């Protein structure tokens, strides 16, 4: 119930985004599908559907990567809150210090389906991605990275409290 050091928000990114949105430069991107020929829709057939309907880490990794063997590694850094301010929007990011990373996945072990999202990472793209996921309840969140064919991981327990009435 005590305050922390007050923050006067000088959120440059918020400002830039608002300004760009208002000016229509970042936002003028409302083209419906197909009217834009340069970027064809991705192929849905590449979707690893089976990996998204598993209820355990092992089954998920097996379906996604063909192996469930994974080593916890300090070379995978992961950022997630200790306590989620709202389970509907939990910022999670990972950053792997490892060669030849080709893929990654974020798992939430106590979600109805364990797999939250996965990425195919081509050469030249950093193995560091930030996104926002939903957590149904307090759970361990695991970042898995495939490096040279081997799986390495970092994990963190994220507490989800009920909040937000009204």
């Amino acid at each position: 119930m005590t305050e922390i050091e007050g923050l006067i928000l000088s959120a440059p990114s918020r400002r830039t985004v608002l300004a760009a949105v208002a000016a229509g430069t970042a936002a003028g991107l409302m083209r419906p599908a197909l009217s834009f020929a340069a970027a064809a829709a991705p192929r849905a057939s590449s979707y690893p559907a089976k990996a998204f309907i598993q209820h355990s880490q092992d089954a998920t990794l097996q379906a996604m990567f063909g192996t469930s063997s994974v080593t916890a590694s300090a070379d995978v850094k992961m950022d997630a809150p200790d306590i989620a301010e709202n389970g509907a929007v939990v910022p999670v990011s990972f950053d792997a210090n490892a060669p030849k990373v080709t893929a990654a996945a974020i798992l939430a072990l106590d979600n109805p389906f364990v797999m939250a999202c996965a990425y195919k990472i081509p050469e030249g793209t950093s193995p560091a991605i930030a996104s926002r996921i939903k957590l149904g309840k307090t759970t361990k969140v695991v970042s898995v990275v495939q490096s040279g064919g081997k799986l390495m991981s970092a994990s963190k327990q994220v507490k989800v409290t009920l909040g937000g009435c009204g």
Partner: protein
Amino acid sequence: MKLALIVLASLWAAPLAQAASQPDPAADLQGFQGYFLKRFPKVPLAAYVNGPYNFSKSERDQWKQIIEFPPYAFAVADGKTLFDTKFANGKTYASCFPNGGIGIAQTYPMFDAKTGRVVPLGVAINRCRVANGAAKLSLTTGKLADIEAYMTSTSDGKPIDVVVPHDPRALAAYQAGKEYFYSRRGQLNFSCASCHVQAAGMHLRGDVLAPALGLTASFPLYRSSWGDVGTLVRRFIGCNKKVKAEPEAADSTAYRDLAYFMTYMNNGLPIAGPGARP
């Protein structure tokens, strides 16, 4: 850290005398802001617009990540499109507002001497629609909230500048809003001040109770629990329900006056809307 704390907390002095004889907004403002500045010495005045984030580092860290690309960006973009869209008569919203509606959100709610009533920005947007032959929009969410989000974004950082003119009707509206804020209601018999003054900075279930100072500055708000952007009125309705009180009508005089008082108490703080909250 539950309701019991709130009871304990009511030992704190209230910042304003509850039964002022003659409304004195300027004196109230000084007392109100001074109370919080003294109680939370680490929080500078302008930081109050960030509400709960002055009281929880973990919440603040998540919020900073979220506003890197804020979820209300779509509301601002959609709001701009709507704002620029012509009514059937060829006019746009810009025709209804000073400076074409750009950079003026900090002056609302505004006292309208013609009708003798308080006009919050949402009501002004609806008035503009009606004046141009369009139907009113919901004052709580959806298109009107998007338009408000866009208009507010053009006032980002401008000091809130609500005026209570020397007009007995304006003073009466101010006073009514103040009384609403400090009156207990609902089955739980809480006033707005019980939670947002006495218990400010404490936890209520998963939430940190934001202090009344700064409480209106980030509206309209994207709340993750709403999943979209809502207006101050939407929040009033939510907070009335929280204490099991019957909410007022979105367009009611009671809510207009309440917004008038609360926003006046934030005079000088920077506009930080649209904002994001859990």
